[in-house]
């Protein structure tokens, strides 16, 4: 039972355009959501997070939106740069369990 789902395995955008990565979750106990970025042969690195008490969090070119009623979050990257090309994982944690539950990832390719 996948509690965190990333339904798009890959996404390709042009440099300078917006990248939108989506994530859905099923567990209502999740109260904190994160995005991690992973380059080949490296561990994931934290990118941005959002608490369930908010619906938006922004950090530079990265914005995460949370729609609790739809159990959906998205990561917007504007403008996209070739260095953003990586696999992006959505993750969630909740009360009583601090380990993260990850989605299967979306491979983003930003074309120069």
């Amino acid at each position, binding site marked *: 039972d996948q509690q965190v789902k990333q339904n798009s395995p890959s996404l390709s955008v042009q440099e300078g355009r917006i990248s939108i990565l989506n994530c859905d979750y099923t567990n209502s106990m999740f109260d904190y959501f994160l995005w991690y970025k992973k380059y080949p042969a490296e561990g994931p690195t934290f990118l941005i997070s959002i608490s369930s008490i908010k619906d938006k969090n922004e950090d530079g070119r990265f914005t995460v939106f949370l729609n609790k009623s739809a159990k959906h979050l998205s990561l917007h990257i504007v403008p996209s740069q070739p260095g953003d090309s990586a696999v992006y994982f959505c993750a969630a944690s909740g009360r009583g369990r*601090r380990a993260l539950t990850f989605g299967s*990832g979306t491979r983003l390719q930003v074309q120069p």
Partner: protein
Amino acid sequence: GAGVSQSPSNKVTEKGKDVELRCDPISGHTALYWYRQSLGQGLEFLIYFQGNSAPDKSGLPSDRFSAERTGGSVSTLTIQRTQQEDSAVYLCASSAGDSSYNEQFFGPGTRLTVL
């Protein structure tokens, strides 16, 4: 400062052999997590250590898997009688505390291949 380190970076073993994977967390981090990523999958939680508390072993897939954390620092994940389905990248992460807001820092992983 030094990040999370893992060794070996790659391990090839034969089916039925035991393997040990090591994780050195960031100094001072009290929480340590093991995850694994199978081909084409997301990261799957295995086990979690927090200070002196009993570990959360709820993610271990079978009793062939075990882990320990000595002195609240280095951790070893042991897989006994390895099977081909154990082939994956095993990732370790540490954080300064066990709050959701404590960022988990990941090591580069150990790629395990079971022939």
